[in-house]
């Protein structure tokens, strides 16, 4: 009897360990399709995809940072600032939209570089540096927009449309950014260096990895991904709003952690983060379909995040 339990437990644990987030997503999807006839329809699933897109793109950026054992609290604010800058440059300043888009991406990049400079050279804890940036970026968004929404240029707003009337562009952008994140993490020097830095910064440094320079790359990527997320969000709403994406940084971090990354660094995958963002979106969508009040939705999502981190702890204990 007792040996039976002993031999069975590791199997269950390893199943949880390797497919935790994906398994949870599948269970969630199956449960919701049984509970609501509206869940498993093409329209609704694409809707979920659109809902997930902004969080997922922000979360891909956060994945880089979290793998290096850092944290980026500024991504929501940077997303809003980038979108405002795009809309302002295109409408108020009257520059062509491609230029405005590049300017917006550069703003995201610049915010990331400032974060990294404070962290790598100023030796500020990432939490503080990016918290400061959260305030600065959100404030600048309000300053530039004078507190009101700015209409997005039409050409860019198509990012919020669908192709052929059904395939939403945000979902495509999400997929593209996901692939880019996965390639960076798995197949490039900065990506592999991120894992080494998060796993053991001193060992990475003594192995000749330029830790500070790689941190610049990491936070800059997070800033650029945030800018892309901000542009996608503004396109969907057809206007850039200074208060957009408030609190999204926490969703992004939650998605990364649900996806199996460890806040202590060295672990995390782009695919896991995608699954994490989808879980949050499916959950919100399903709770809406089941007419659960938005107040209760917050409770449920809080519980899910706690469960995800518990799973992470269990997994590490299982691995000894």
């Amino acid at each position, binding site marked *: 009897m007792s040996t039976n339990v*002993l031999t069975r437990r*590791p199997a269950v644990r390893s199943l949880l360990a390797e497919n935790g987030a994906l398994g949870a997503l599948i269970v969630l999807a199956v449960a919701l399709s049984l509970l609501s006839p509206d869940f498993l329809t093409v329209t609704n699933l694409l809707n979920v995809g659109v809902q997930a897109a902004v969080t997922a793109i922000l979360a891909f950026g956060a994945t880089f940072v979290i793998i290096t054992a850092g944290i980026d609290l500024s991504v929501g604010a940077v997303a809003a600032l980038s979108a405002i800058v795009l809309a302002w440059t295109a409408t108020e300043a009257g520059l062509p939209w491609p230029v405005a888009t590049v300017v917006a991406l550069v703003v995201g990049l610049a915010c990331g570089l400032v974060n990294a400079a404070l962290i790598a050279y100023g030796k500020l804890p990432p939490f503080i540096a990016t918290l400061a940036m959260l305030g600065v970026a959100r404030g600048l968004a309000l300053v530039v927009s004078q507190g009101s929404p700015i209409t997005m240029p039409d050409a860019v707003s198509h990012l919020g449309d669908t192709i052929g009337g059904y395939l939403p562009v945000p979902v495509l952008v999400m997929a593209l950014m996901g692939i880019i994140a996965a*390639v960076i993490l*798995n*197949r*490039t*020097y900065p*990506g*592999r*260096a991120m*894992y*080494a830095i998060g*796993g*053991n910064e*001193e*060992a*990475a*440094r*003594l*192995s*000749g*990895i*330029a830790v500070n320079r790689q941190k610049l790359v990491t936070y800059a990527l997070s800033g650029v991904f945030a800018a892309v997320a901000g542009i996608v969000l503004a396109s969907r709403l057809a206007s850039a709003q200074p208060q957009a994406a408030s609190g999204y940084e926490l969703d992004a971090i939650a998605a990364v952690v649900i996806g199996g990354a460890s806040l202590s660094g*060295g*672990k995390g995958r782009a695919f896991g983060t995608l699954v994490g963002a989808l879980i949050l979106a499916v959950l919100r969508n399903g709770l809406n379909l089941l007419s659960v009040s938005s107040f209760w939705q917050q409770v449920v999502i809080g519980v899910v995040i706690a469960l995800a981190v518990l799973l992470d702890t269990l997994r590490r204990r299982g*691995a*000894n």
Partner: protein
Amino acid sequence: MNGAEEILRVEGLGKTFPGVVALDGVDFDLRAGEVHVLLGENGAGKSTLIKMLSGAYQPDAGRILLDGSPVHIRTAAEARRLGIATIYQEFNLVPQLTVAENLALGRPPRRFGFVDTRRMHDQARELLDRVGIDVDPRARVAELGIARMQMVEIAKALALDARVLIMDEPTAVLTTGEVERLFTMVRQLRDRGVAIVFITHHLEEIARLGDRVTVLRDGRSVREVPATTPQDELVRLMVGRPIDQQYPRAAGDPGAPLLKVSGLTRAGAFAGVSFEIRAGEVVGLAGLVGAGRTEVARAVFGADPYDSGEVLMDGRPLPRTNVRAAMEAGLGLVPEDRKGQGLVLGADVAENLGLVTLSRSGRGGFVDRAGRRKEAGEVAGRLGVRMSNLGQEVRTLSGGNQQKIVIGKWLLADARVLILDEPTRGIDVGAKVEIYQLINSLTASGHAVLMISSDLPEILGMSDRVLVMARGRLVGELDAAQATQDAVMALAVTEVEETRVH
């Protein structure tokens, strides 16, 4: 010792982890008032055994008897309650707290619900007196040296009235003088009736301290012998075959100078350090702990800054604090703290082996994964790393195999001058010899090694030249013929005493 009361007995203990049989029938008994040495190569099962005695693991087979009756030790708290205390190599102290707070951790004396600081300090002083060390209970643990931290850890164990004290390689981190003090203390405890399980890789310590020795090999207890057993015999039991030579150094003729350090100085750490290392040489860097050896090595490698002086590779100066430049010039460093500085413990073998060469293995901006894996596989094979596959987390490897991986990443990078800082600390005899042979093959192919070690026989046995440091200065250089234990020690301590007089 005969007739002394038996406290602990272990019968046929077995433990299997997924894919590995860690223990496969271990018998062992411990009497009150004895020092029982557990001897075995890394991976022989010593750690697994003590983890079962301290409640970290549960046995799959066999039983543990305490005072003759079987016990199940399920948690660390239960082990403590049964009077079994374990002192691991990694200390369980909170560095930010004071000594007294650490000693009273979890159960501070209270008065009206508040911590009674005075009583806490009194109790701490009493415990520290019992261990016989002079430490201020109000000092922060972080400010103590390693030796004193260990003493505090022992005092903490005694605070719980331990009858069985398990010490996992306590001497690995201590200097000669500190080891003496530790031994004195262990003998006092033994005379007071405490039963001590002592793990060490230093064979010469066994006869000096131990009463009996149980040798473990491949998860089994091979034999129990008296501590007076000759070292050769112990090695044979441990390895399962005789080791013909403990230090198989094969010196060749030194070639052209590769690394030249001149006048290297950093205020408060080292001053005016100059030396040269030539192709094909093994240069030993001896000295007491704290003499500045590691500091010099790290500064040479660019890991830490220096105020003045120069480091030249092939006659070209290296920029300061630039690990990358040192690496590209052909320098490599295997740091003393393997886990803290050498490895990414959560990453796999292939990833760790490819860490240094990561920046070179690019192909069109992308990392050549297949190529990296192949290289890692080759070097792991060359080093004889014992692992299940390249995807195994290095955390789960034994110390010797971990060290091979730290060295392996520099072999892949083809470092021409390799600085090895305590390369065999905490490594068993078999793996030590493998590392020595690796050093031989490196120097035979024109590479050079600077070896820092606190293990004097190792320095003497493997070096072609010995540099001795004391108090941040290079106080002497001895060639292999002149270098004796006495000569090196004389150099290592004289300067210190002179400085003390001032």
